[in-house]
């Protein structure tokens, strides 16, 4: 097996909110068609890191970024890069399921296509995305029902289907199962395993066992710094950095 090519290369990424440096000179790479987990205590910069990757970070007033993020070799912060187009390539799934509540299941999935001005019959795409999100069998007879009528776990998979509809290359997941029960969580984790054949996935999670279960590579962030990044197995069985060791074993820092 050859090592997978890097989909994203982050170089000396520093993220600043007002006067606070939330990320300090983070350099790492994210291999294509694999799952990278970001772990670390609250406030370590995990979510900020994720949001920098599709420039959601810049939507916060007073936020700025230094360093570079190369997506397939191209800096996502370039002047010629349209952030809306970027976010189509780099999709995102959030902590709490956030479907458009009154919209039907079908319209939720096709909303991204319509917003992007893609015309035509979206039925086939919707079915394909719902299948990819492992939700089709559960909703195929109620595609016209409002999204709010689905369970929390179904809503989250609906959001994943919605993110997939615009054919992204990278999927960012910010604590995608923290509001779900263990069974719904297992379904989403199973889905992540399926999706990595087609997408590059970056997942932020507080649940270290989840990172261990779903990811190929794990990065440990602490107080805005990238302490260690490595194969998930190595991080959880034999980390190199004492701070990683303390974090994964649950010791005082």
């Amino acid at each position, binding site marked *: 097996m050859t090592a997978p090519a890097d989909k994203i290369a982050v170089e000396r990424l520093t993220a600043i909110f007002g006067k606070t440096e939330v990320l300090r000179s983070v350099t790492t790479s994210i291999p294509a068609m694999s799952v990278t987990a970001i772990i670390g205590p609250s406030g370590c910069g995990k979510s900020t890191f994720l949001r920098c990757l599709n420039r959601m970070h810049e939507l916060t007033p007073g936020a700025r970024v230094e360093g570079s993020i190369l997506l397939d070799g191209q800096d996502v912060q370039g002047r010629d890069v349209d952030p809306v187009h970027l976010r189509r390539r780099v999709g995102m799934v959030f902590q709490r399921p956030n479907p458009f509540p009154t919209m039907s299941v079908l319209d939720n999935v096709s909303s991204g296509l319509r917003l992007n001005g893609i015309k035509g019959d979206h039925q086939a795409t919707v079915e394909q995305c719902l299948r990819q999100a492992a939700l089709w069998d559960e909703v195929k007879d109620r595609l016209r029902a409002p999204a709010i009528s689905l369970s929390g776990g179904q809503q989250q998979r609906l959001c994943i289907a919605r993110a997939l509809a615009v054919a992204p290359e990278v999927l960012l997941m910010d604590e995608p199962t923290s509001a779900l029960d263990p069974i719904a969580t297992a379904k989403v984790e199973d889905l992540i395993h399926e999706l990595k054949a087609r997408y590059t996935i970056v997942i932020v999670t507080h649940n270290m066992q989840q990172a261990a279960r779903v990811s190929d590579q794990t990065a440990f962030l602490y107080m805005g710094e990238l302490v260690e990044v490595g194969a998930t197995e190595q991080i959880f*069985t*034999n980390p190199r950095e004492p701070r990683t060791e303390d974090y994964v074993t649950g010791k*005082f820092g």
Partner: protein
Amino acid sequence: MAKTHIDKSYEAELGALREQLLEMGGLVEAAIAGSVRAVVERDAVLADLVIRKDKTVNRMEVDIDGACRRILALRQPAASDLRFITTALKIVTDLERMGDLAVNIARRAVDLAQAPALQPLHDLGRLAALSEAALAKALDAFVTADPVKAEEVLEADDHLDALYLKIFNHLLTTMMEDPRTIRRATSLMFSAKHLERFGDHATNLAEMVIFMVRGTDVRHSKNKA
């Protein structure tokens, strides 16, 4: 061990497991010392005591196994904790086996005590001292998480093997000179073999300690016969 787990009950569980392993190691150390003393001093009563005490070692193996399984299931240990638990699971198997070797020697001691003494048994006593020291040092390396001490155990095993070979050849000569000694000499030969095996188990423990501390596997790294 400057840093402790945030969850104090978890810290206590790991500490208790470490204590149990040490206690079991201590019992096995005493067993091997007692069994060889029973051979050398022709003390069948002491031999019998060693045999009976092995029940405790066996029970501890089961208890420690259970404690490890419980921690794996309930705590999902990671990194050095994970290596500690998986090491503990393997260490108990070796310790239990070492206890059995002491029992085997004790059984020979009962047998030997009933026949006339064969010869001075300095070398057997020395072999026992080396085996005991190997276990003591391996356990010490385990408690203090000291891979350097563990490496010393690995190195010392060569002396143990050499001394065993010397005893073996000596007993072989004795038997050839006087076939009436065969039964007793064979018992002594088995005892020596058990001690040599005991040393090999101590080597296993030392290798596990090195893995536990450094996370690198040193088993089968040199071509042993």
